[in-house]
């Protein structure tokens, strides 16, 4: 077996934290050289993010306080996929909850692991267009402002640190390329 084909078989797994949105386990695994090591892994449900673009070429971003970073961040709407929910249905629900709109057109952009070195969260990214107002009550502990930003301003806002969130950078730049090629 070459190093590149080893899939780190689990020798033992130990749960060290179980919470509302994340669980943490420590897996003892076998390395290609026969030694053992441990991997700390955060388990998080799959999730979605959406780039909503209105007919005037504005993207609807959300601004909210993020406790882990102790700052207000500007991000694309996003959220966890609920049990039994398809990624697309989850994207439609979050659009209504977070920015108060539905999308006539929802197309997949791509999907990615958020931090694959240590976390199991896999995120599906969508582009939403043909938006119409439609509000669904949001989670009671979320306080969110909707911010309309011209799509053309996005690269500048990434460069100056106004946008500093991986899923937002990835999905916004991808959406711009997709829209330019349409």
């Amino acid at each position, binding site marked *: 077996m070459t190093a*590149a084909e080893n899939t780190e078989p689990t020798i033992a797994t130990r749960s060290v934290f179980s919470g509302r949105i994340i669980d943490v386990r420590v897996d003892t695994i076998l390395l290609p050289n026969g030694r053992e090591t441990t991997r700390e892994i955060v388990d998080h449900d799959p999730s979605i993010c959406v780039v909503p673009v209105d007919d005037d070429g504005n993207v609807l971003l959300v601004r909210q306080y993020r406790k882990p970073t102790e700052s*207000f961040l500007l991000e694309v709407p996003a959220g966890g996929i609920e049990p039994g929910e398809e990624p697309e249905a989850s994207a439609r629900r979050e659009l209504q909850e977070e920015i108060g709109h539905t999308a006539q057109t929802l197309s997949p952009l791509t999907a990615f692991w958020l*931090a694959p070195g240590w976390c199991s969260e896999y995120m599906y990214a969508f582009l939403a267009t043909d938006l119409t107002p439609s509000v669904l009550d949001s989670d009671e*502990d979320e306080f969110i402002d909707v911010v309309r930003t011209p799509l053309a301003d996005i690269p500048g806002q990434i460069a100056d640190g106004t946008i500093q969130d*991986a899923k937002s950078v990835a999905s916004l*730049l991808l959406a711009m390329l997709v829209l330019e090629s349409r």
Partner: protein
Amino acid sequence: MAPRVLPTTAGSGEPTIRTTPAYQGDIIGVRIDTVGLPNGLEATREIVEHPSSVCIVPLDGEGNLLMVRQYRKAAKEFLIEVPAGKMEGSEDPESTTSRELREEIGHAAGRLRKLGAFYSAPGWCTQMIHAYLATELTPSRLDADYDEFIEVVRLPFEEVMDLVTAGTIRDAKSVAALLLAMRVLGDN
């Protein structure tokens, strides 16, 4: 340029009422913060503390990316990613970048350009990733971490968009850094 100040209904943040450590491991820690909300109620936030990190888009003189392929236990699959790693001790982002380039792809860079910085999962994790473009590469190897088994994969930079949309590259930091590099190189 300073970030724009935006109007807000979200109040002044989420002051900590109390914090409870829940786990401390080799790399990550977990704490639960009870916070005050703008409506006067309280909520709890589960927070993973993870060291800040770097990721690098290394581009050789022939227009090839030097990516790394490795098994990711958390993802349960092999992934192709840009080289990356945690900042250690007193390192600044540029010294981590230089070290990781030598450890993971066996090269040093004559030129480093900052592409941006972003949080990997700001809803529940503290990790910030600084992204760089590395060019003028020359061979220079440093021994890698004993528990990392990495294969270097060369991919044409002009195929980045296809590699991302086809899902060959499906790692958020890699997608973000590669698309930022496309813009930087496209503007030059």
